[in-house]
């Protein structure tokens, strides 16, 4: 990915800023410019999602792209955020056996990948299980 594109998407990648339709209240992430339900009467505004959600579905990746080779095997999930949108995210700090559909997760800020040893570092969100007794339990 080119530096300008990464930079333009920083508000979405860092702080989960999507959009919300002022007419029907539906929340979109990644952000949309037009509400598909309300069309012209919809008024979309930037909206920051809470980052809380649940595992809607997941899979364990044993053979992934080169950028993620050092993290194999890792868990990739579709997370349903509490405001409604579903996002694809890596589940960090866990192994495949720990994750179940319906598990509560929170989005956390992690290194996603880097452009070699000299390029920029891409930061963004990953999901982390909310462990009641542990560190994620706020």
């Amino acid at each position, binding site marked *: 990915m080119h530096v300008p594109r990464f930079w333009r998407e*920083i508000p979405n990648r*860092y*702080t989960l800023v999507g959009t919300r339709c002022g007419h029907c209240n539906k929340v979109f992430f990644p952000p949309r410019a037009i509400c598909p339900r309300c069309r012209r009467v919809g008024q979309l505004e930037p909206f*920051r999602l809470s980052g809380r959600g649940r595992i809607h579905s997941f899979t364990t990746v044993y053979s992934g792209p080169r950028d993620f080779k*050092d*993290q194999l095997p890792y868990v990739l999930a579709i997370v349903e955020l509490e405001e409604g949108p579903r996002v694809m995210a890596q589940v*960090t*700090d866990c192994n495949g056996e720990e994750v179940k559909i319906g598990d509560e997760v929170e989005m*956390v*800020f*992690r*290194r*996603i990948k880097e452009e070699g040893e000299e390029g920029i*570092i891409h*930061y963004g969100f*990953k999901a982390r299980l909310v*462990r009641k*007794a*542990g*560190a*994620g*339990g*706020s």
Partner: protein
Amino acid sequence: MEVGIVGYGAYIPRYRLRVEEIARMWGADPQQTKRSFGVEEKAVAGPDEDTVTISVEAAKNALRRGGVDPSLVGAVYVGSESHPYAVKPTATIVAEAVGATPEMTAADFEFACKAGTAGIQACMGMVEAGMIKYGMAIGADTAQSSPGDPLEYAAAAGGAAFLVGKLDREAVASIEATYSYTTDTPDFWRREMRPYPRHGGRFTGRPGYFKHTLSAAQGLMRKLGLTPRDFDHAVFHQPNGRFPVEVASELGFSMSQIRAGLLSPKIGNTYSGAAMLGLAAILDGAKEGERILAVSYGSGAGSDAFSLIVREGIERKRDLAPKVSDYLEDKVYIDYATYCKFTRKLVR
């Protein structure tokens, strides 16, 4: 001084490497190594963690406790000696990720293990001068050590963030005074473009850590007309498990005064995070009215000492974010090979 801590937050990665495992690798006696360092295990950052991500976790916890709109944070300072970029600030990434940008100032601080407390002092001055409403000072590190170097037994990862603001009913603690002691002492250094630090060996403890930590603590107590008996808790920088205990005893503090903030036996030396994480652990369990002495140390060399008095806000705020003890309990052990992979020590 009318400045206080309105929020604080800690973060320690989940992964732990036992000192026995490091000793096994290098053919050292595990029990003797544990005794001589006073460290049982150290915290290691995961493969997708670095000083930026640790700072963001700690800063978000501080904002949760502070109950502050992030856009009101007028300054973000990140103290570390493991900033991911040589040129490009950690603080801008952190400020963006917590939602403090763009009407604010930000910078990275460097002073070995005490850059985070230097950030607290900068925020105190700016808040008191009325330049900003809130300032965020973060100390975080993913400490690097050359394989086989004695530093490897303790060099660890973790961080803490303190949100500094005007003293009011929302404060968790007031900062009564601060005092620093600084000299040019070459006890520990890393040259540009070199991956691992060098140090002057064990003899540097006396002219480095002990001289500066003792002088800063004594200078602060003299300035305030206080003695160790006036403090309920004390925390000192923790390069290992023994130095902070020895410095406390030389100053006249008891083990019960330093117990709550002594984390190095369980997580190692988190460098810029060390004294600040210890202070966070003390606040997690402190009562209104208690007085705390916090003294950082950075090689090169200098110490910042602070006297804090716990305020009523602590009762409402301490449960709003994970406590240091939560992070201590939630851990996963890794072996030396995994540690090498996570910290990118493998040659390919």
